């Protein structure tokens, strides 16, 4: 498989890479470049070189997972490129080929799939109040904990329709609509993406010495959700 050719099949890649002159404006404006050892200018340069070996290294690296997809780069590029869109195409291909499992940051895709992905197809929302478990979200603070412990009363107080029928914030999405979302995921490759993330993650988990343990690799999930080797940041 020619990786560059695969990337060109993604309309976001076509839209995101026109002709980069390596000026570095994207890097200057990039919030990720300030925090991580990351340089969107180099990403554009590598894919533009069509060097298959370097593209493969990129697909297996932590690097492509540093971008926050804020798309600040889109506004500033004088040549109309969008490194953020190139990143999205690279991440899609990395998951397609299983290369994401080769890096610490890439492996986190399983945790995101298990929470956000499952929420979408099972509840019709990306985020649910039940997902904001205080131990996993200490940044939500004492108020977040208060909301979590008193969901029904708090949401009712502010006019939400938490888990209720009909319209309103946090309403229960009707089952027939959930079924339509599931069908959309089936028809458009959404479930296929999920299955690839699960498949390649499980292979990697076994390789790293984790076992299923009857709880669908929860120990591995905990590992990828919390591990940071401390080598990602700009020094």
């Amino acid at each position, binding site marked *: 498989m020619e990786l560059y050719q695969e990337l060109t099949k993604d309309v976001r890649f076509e839209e995101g890479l026109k002709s980069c002159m390596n000026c570095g404006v994207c890097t200057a404006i990039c919030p990720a470049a300030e925090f991580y050892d990351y340089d969107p200018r180099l990403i554009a340069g590598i894919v533009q070189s069509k060097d298959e070996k370097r593209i493969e290294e990129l697909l297996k690296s932590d690097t492509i997972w540093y971008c926050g997809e804020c*798309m*600040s780069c889109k506004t500033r590029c004088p040549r109309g490129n969008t490194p953020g869109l190139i990143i999205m195409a690279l991440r899609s291909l990395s998951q397609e080929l299983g290369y994401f499992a080769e890096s610490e940051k890439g492996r986190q895709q399983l945790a995101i799939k298990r929470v956000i992905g499952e929420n979408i197809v099972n509840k019709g929302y*990306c*985020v649910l109040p039940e997902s904001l478990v205080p131990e996993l979200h200490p940044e939500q603070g004492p108020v977040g904990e208060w909301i979590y412990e*008193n969901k029904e009363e708090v949401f009712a107080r502010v006019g939400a329709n938490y888990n209720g029928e009909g319209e309103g914030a946090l309403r229960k999405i009707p089952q027939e609509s959930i079924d339509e979302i599931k069908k*959309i995921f089936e028809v458009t490759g*959404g479930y296929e993406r999920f299955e690839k993330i699960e498949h390649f993650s499980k292979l990697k988990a076994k390789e790293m010495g984790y076992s299923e343990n009857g709880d669908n690799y929860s120990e591995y999930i905990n590992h990828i959700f919390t591990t*940071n080797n401390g080598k990602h940041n700009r020094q």
Partner: protein
Amino acid sequence: MKLEGKKQVWKDYQKEIADDHYFYVRSCIRQNFFPGSEQTFLKILRTELNKDIYENPHHTTCSGIGYHSDVVPFETIQTVVARQFALMTEAGYKNLAVSCITSFGIYNEIIETWKEFPAELEKIRGFLKKATGREFEIPENVAHASDIVYKFREDILQKAKYKLVNKNTGQPLKIVEHIGCHYSKMFPSKGVGGAEFPHVLVGMIESWGGEVIDYPERRHCCGFGFRQYLVMSNRGYSVSNSRKKFESMEPYKPDAILCNCPGCPMFLDRWQYVIEEMEGKTYGQNGQGIPVLTYEEMAGLVLGYNPWDMGMQMHQTNVEPLLDKMGIDYNPELKYADKAGKIIGTPAMIGCGCE
């Protein structure tokens, strides 16, 4: 007529915003963290402005957080969005009103993709038909909910009970505005004032009597970064970017931060608490935090709505410093009360100068 000079230049920064008959789509983030804001927006439109805004209970997430954390493929999100459009078409509406900035960016990205790549549109029509049997029309007008409040800011002013003015000094309150990245950084022509001069929140602040604070990191991202917040071990990215903004705005002594994105106010609110816990540092006056508001909350305060009805007790950084400066009449004892006025329980408020 040929436009010349300045008029031609500023033409690119104008945006047409429909004036009635909206199909409303909610935000996953806003309804989790600021559900009262969505209710406030609907109340303002329906009861103050007498507008028709319709919500179909069958609409779902746009799946945008999944898309921008890369677990949802482009074809999938396009088809989920096409389904929202189908519900709108079936209900007879042509104007989309979007609560979320991530969704707003996605709706624009998808519509623009379909213009650039017509084959994608046909593919998605096929996917939607196969999956649901539905068909759709592309909306004639896509407005973020903040665009709509901006459009009617003078009508809101006509009904104002409070202004963005310090009741003790008579001076305009100093407000920092923070525009969500996906509002206009991707498609500048889709936002009021474009990406360089976004005017959507500035217009509200100035109309309602406040003063907009400019500061070096005004356009910097809040630091959400999707996967950079969703995964615990990445959250240093998120707090660091918010901190960069706080450090930059601090010398200007803002009275409040105003946001149009659902995620940004949550991060700018919660990370102030975290920074105080980590470093003992607060960014507001008298050892307090800087209150962070949604535009719906600010419009509601101007209109005299009860802050606790709007959910301002769900902020981690206390909003009382702003309420007191505006001279708002509120009952502190009912802050943590339920619908019937019974106290639900009090959070252990330990951050941002909170008592």
